[in-house]
């Protein structure tokens, strides 16, 4: 994905790199709460309870959705900062 050919400026390359790093981190969290906690580790997490919810079941039917919302808004805020830093915002 780092296919620079001198067609872009230094600022654009650095901006894109930071964007990719942020993307990879956030997509990893996205994967962990849904496919991880909600599916692959559900049988293990279900031993614990969150109120009347088995924990894995809670992640599958409620928790992952709340985390998804948090991820998007965090990305929105961070990207704005990164874009300002490199003077590339709209």
């Amino acid at each position, binding site marked *: 994905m780092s296919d620079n050919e001198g067609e872009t400026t230094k600022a654009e390359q650095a901006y894109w790199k930071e964007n990719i790093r942020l993307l990879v981190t956030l997509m990893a969290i996205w994967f962990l709460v849904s496919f991880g906690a909600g599916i692959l580790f559900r049988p293990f997490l279900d031993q614990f309870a969150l109120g009347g919810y088995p924990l894995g079941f809670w992640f599958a039917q409620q928790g992952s959705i709340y985390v*998804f919302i948090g991820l998007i808004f965090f*990305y929105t805020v961070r990207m704005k900062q990164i874009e300002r830093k490199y003077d590339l915002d709209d």
Partner: protein
Amino acid sequence: MDTQTLIYIFVGVSFALYIGIAVWSRAGSTKEFYVAGGGVNPVVNGMATAADWMSAASFISMAGLIAFLGYDGSVYLMGWTGGYVMLALLLAPYLRKFGQFTVPDFIGTRYYSKVARVVAVICLIMISFTYIAGQMRGVGIVFSRFLDVDITMGVIIGMAIVFVYAVLGGMKGITYTQVAQFCVLIFAYMVPAFFISFLITGNPIPQIGLGSQVNDGSGMYVLQKLDMVLQDLGFGAYTEGSKSTIDIFCITMALMVGTAGLPHVIVRFFTVPKASDARKSAGWALVFIALLYTTAPAVGAFARLNFVDTVNNVEYSESAEWFRNWEANSLIVWQDKNGDGVMTYSSGDAFEGKPEFTGETGANGERLVSNTSNADSTNEVYVDRDIMVLANPEIADLPGWVVALVAAGGLAAALSTAAGLLLVISSSISHDLLKSTFAPQISEKGELLAARVAATAAILVAGYLGIYPPGWVAQVVAFAFGLAAASLFPAIFMGIFWKFMNKEGAIAGMISGLVFTFGYIVYFKFVVSPDANVAANWLFGISPEGIGVIGMLINFGVAIIVSKVTTSPPIEIRQLVDSIRVPRGAGDAAAH
């Protein structure tokens, strides 16, 4: 006032509102018709996206599916929300920066090829029609039950309403009608959910109620009680589910990626002013969607508890009014196998296949069916899962105005999605097939007329599919996701993140992903007998609902290999990719 009068009033007022908005916001130019002029506020756009997105399947079928599937229903909850993370992070801001009108526009330009554009149009039309069939069936169900007309008449009324605001108003018209429809549908969904949560647990917030203790003095939690009651009747535990882990994994993934590849959702992000607004707008869309999606599991669980309580071991002569109402609409059947006049509800099918009514009534006044009884099970009750949300207020004995509200909400959900789909179909025909491929000299006025004619034709096809529905609402919808995941998503994703993807790779990838996924689904759903559509025969144990993931991998693999052995894309395409990666200048892009 009786419930029926209230329903006419609620539905009538909401329809008048939609049509009023459509007339007020008529589209005068192609830009208004395709992308609402491009100046929609991101919060407003989020709301419109939520209505566009939440279809008859979300509103009517999803809670019912969860009620009967338990944990397995999580695939819809995570799948249909997780896709928004992919949209916001991987696609929406870049597509907005690119700044054109349709999804095939992006694919056609990025892959510098009319062939790629036409292949994208074909994918888009297949996806949209698969999806729209489910919406029209939803309209039919709601109308036939609540407006007391037959399904055909109901679909025709629905077509007429959509015709007015999609054909007249284009994207500009549907954006603002969808905002109104969102308000109607979310209010209609939440009100009975609050009531039912309060009745069962004493806590009116359904998201908390589902994790609370049942109000019956037993001290048991809702989910605990549900597990126990269902296991007593011979079902599996509610919180365990019965699908294999790989199948759950693949279905969830297919629904997520499919969401991110659905053209009628993507196109909504073309309507905001800036690239950063596209991200914000995806966040707001998910907030509005989550209101319904975190409520649905509670509605499903409460509905299942109530259903068991009011049906099992109850004498038919004592059965509730809602039971008779839905029996009259052919969605509930009681077959008195043991002849004791008492309804038994347990695991297994009551009889084979869909109910075939004989037109006669039995000893207790129930409608008789000619289906062969299933001797392996003591179950006597057939219930169509689609009724759970619609019947819920009646099952919980809520007042008439709540029932009327739910009717209006169900129609809002189905109509808003149908309109969004009609619009992407018509704009890809008028813009991508006519203006950009076969008739480039067409005038703006001619293009607008073509878009309206195409929208009209699409409504007629959709209406036909609604009157002769190809299957369950949610199941049909799930196929659209598999097709979107396997065809459009990889082409768009690689178009942004891999500069060296070329036209040969993208075209070969889209075709192979689409053909594989479509073939697999058709084979298991229509070619082999239903008995052969089981895990033992599936590829790696993945059901047709989840196979889009494999189709997507095939698409990626074929695309990468083909592009490696063919010439890399021209320099101006690499510059285009560079320019869509940075947000600066998105305001001007729409004008080129």
